[in-house]
């Protein structure tokens, strides 16, 4: 816990954490100071002047809040007439050349300029001369669309490319009312985090080509989730909406602050990973090539599993811990061998040392924790002995059909429980659709051994069964949420110590020896 200091806001005494600037410190206690250019990840720039606050008996009497650290006994004024006048004037300045694009602007509804206009300005425009015309709908690359007219020149985007990605494609050119954000000549946005600019932009100057005109911001339901794109386990908001007469679809992922994991940002690949949740899904169960009901497919699968001589269950490293436990229990009752081998889910050399990791699965650490063998040798020897393969959302053909096993896979029975309609699920004798990670609740352990839980976000019209439920219907014994929780607590001592509903928002850090202890 950081040290606390006492100071005064509008004459009232408050206690805030020391070492922060006024904006961040006051935000914690629920006092808003309007600002455009300041962002905790990009530092204070002090160019927008929106956060000017008065300091009673101070020299100077007016300071930008983003540049002012809290100090004991500081007397901050936020509501004097002078401050209100300043805020009003700054808003008027920002709005002089701002086009009335709100009806067509994707930012409308989550736009700082709109919010601040309603809170701090609320005046009719006094502008009587034509507005400055700048370029609209510029494609900056990486799916970022820039509208120079809407820009308030806070330079967050410029600072992002300089400080975070260190690529520096953007700069502000010209001066005064002709100033604008532009690419350096001959360049375009070219980094794997570029779409974060869209989130950073306080107004609608930077919009995403992918999200453009798809939905209005206020229709979207924001649920918390964990990105399953790689082993980083970035925290995200899943923005989804069920339009009338349509299915519940995800329209975008946005980063969610978690200083322990991903900070303020996520990579573009993860951000666009929502497409995979909407498209290419396995809709209905199949027996052979015939479509069937999920019930029927499950019954057939269960009969085949009971009749199998040597059963091999293939776990996906994307499954949640609960699912893995349930499937392990299923393996125990059916006497099956469990392999966690996943072909091609590690892309060597893809990692960049920031957020993107080589391992493109979300819960490989969970597999290790539960003692599931992930080695290809183990899988291969088990495959040679087996006659029935049950795959829980594992895809053996991520990198294309594997010639080495093709013959053997053609001889045995394959039951694929799959979220997506893949080459592998098409080859399977029985394919059963299952819920994907935005459609169930669970917990995953990321590459740093941080256990994070997430809730269900999307609820499809015809919701496919969760893998825990499927494991139960196939004969597994461990399906009750309470029993699963107890099993998890037995496996993870750190987890056992705290109440279930007290898993911190930032995730639970498992110590190395804990993980090692279990794996051993």
């Amino acid at each position: 816990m950081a040290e606390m200091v006492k100071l005064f806001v509008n004459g009232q005494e408050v206690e805030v954490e020391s070492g922060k600037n006024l904006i961040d410190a006051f935000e914690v206690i629920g006092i808003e100071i309007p600002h455009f250019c300041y962002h905790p990840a990009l530092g204070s720039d002090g160019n927008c002047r929106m956060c000017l606050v008065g300091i009673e008996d101070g020299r100077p009497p007016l300071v930008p809040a983003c540049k002012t650290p809290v100090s004991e006994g500081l007397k901050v004024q936020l509501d004097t007439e002078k401050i209100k006048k300043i805020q009003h004037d700054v808003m008027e300045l920002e709005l002089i050349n701002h086009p009335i694009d709100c009806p067509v602007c994707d930012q409308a509804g989550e736009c700082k300029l709109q919010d601040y206009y309603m809170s701090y300005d609320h005046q009719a425009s006094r502008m009587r001369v034509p507005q400055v015309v700048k370029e609209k709908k510029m494609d900056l690359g990486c799916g970022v669309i820039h509208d120079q007219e809407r820009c308030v020149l806070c330079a967050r985007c410029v600072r992002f490319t300089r400080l975070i990605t260190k690529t520096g494609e953007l700069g502000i050119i010209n001066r005064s009312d002709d100033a604008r954000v532009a690419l350096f000549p001959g360049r375009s946005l070219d980094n794997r985090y570029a779409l974060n600019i869209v989130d950073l932009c306080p107004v609608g100057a930077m919009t995403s080509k992918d999200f453009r005109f798809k939905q209005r911001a206020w229709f979207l339901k924001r649920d918390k989730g964990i990105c399953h794109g790689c082993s980083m386990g970035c925290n995200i908001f899943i923005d989804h909406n069920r339009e009338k007469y349509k299915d519940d679809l995800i329209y975008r992922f946005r980063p969610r602050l978690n200083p322990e994991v991903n900070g303020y940002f996520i990579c573009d690949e993860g951000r666009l990973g929502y497409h995979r949740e909407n498209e290419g899904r396995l809709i209905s169960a199949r027996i052979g090539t015939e479509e069937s009901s999920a019930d029927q497919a499950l019954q057939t699968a269960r009969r085949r599993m009971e009749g199998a001589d040597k059963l091999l269950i293939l776990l996906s490293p994307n499954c949640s811990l609960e699912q893995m436990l349930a499937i392990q229990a299923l393996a125990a009752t059916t006497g099956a061998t469990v392999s966690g081998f996943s072909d091609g889910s590690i892309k060597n050399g893809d990692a960049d040392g920031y957020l993107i990791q080589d391992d493109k699965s979300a819960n490989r650490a969970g597999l290790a924790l539960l003692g599931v063998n992930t080695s290809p040798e183990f899988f291969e020897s088990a495959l040679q002995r087996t006659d029935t393969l049950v795959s829980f959302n594992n895809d053996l053909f991520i990198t294309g059909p594997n010639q080495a096993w093709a013959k053997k896979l053609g001889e045995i029975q394959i039951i694929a429980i799959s979220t997506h309609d893949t080459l592998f699920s098409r080859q399977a004798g029985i394919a059963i659709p299952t819920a994907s990670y935005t459609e169930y609740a669970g917990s995953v352990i990321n590459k740093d051994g941080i256990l994070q839980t997430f809730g269900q976000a999307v609820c499809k019209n015809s919701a496919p069964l969760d893998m825990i439920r499927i494991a139960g219907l196939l004969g597994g014994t461990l399906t009750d949420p309470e029993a699963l929780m107890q099993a998890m607590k037995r496996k993870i001592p750190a987890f056992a110590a705290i109440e279930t509903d007290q898993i911190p928002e930032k995730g639970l850090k498992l110590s190395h020896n804990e993980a090692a202890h279990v794996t051993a």
Partner: protein
Amino acid sequence: MSAKVKIIERKGVSYNEKLFLVEVFKGMRVTLGHFMRNFLDNSKLYVRHYPEVQPEISPRWRGRHRLTTHEDGTVKCVACFMCATNCPSHCIMIEAGERLDGKSEKMPIRFDIDLLECIYCGYCVEACPMDAIRMDTGIYSSTSSDRQSMLKGIDELLTTPGAFTEEDYKKGGV
């Protein structure tokens, strides 16, 4: 200016009123008066002889919807979804797309109003920032024998003409 306060005597507390009978006869006298007047001469009825006599529609009447156009015939709507957001019966379904004619950046690709669900509250007209949707067609009777034809698409909404002149509409009736 102080507000005028009119104190209305509370009815139904006196013995006579509690007995009902006297009040019942008073009421029956009133209704019989109406009956006799209409019975002896039914030209005195207050009703219009619809459908032979059609009502006169005021420009303020909220009839069926239409989408307005610019003078060159292009749609004014920019697909801002304000109408759909305000619609209490969720009967407006819009799909937005890129606009390439330079009037705006955005336009509706699909704009459906389900008249079966519409409650004709006029909130869509109130909400529209572009004056792109109006309920001034003067069509007050929409009937059909199948559901699909009650779903009005963008083409029908654009081609349905308004029933009033621009001046009358702006004036909002007498």
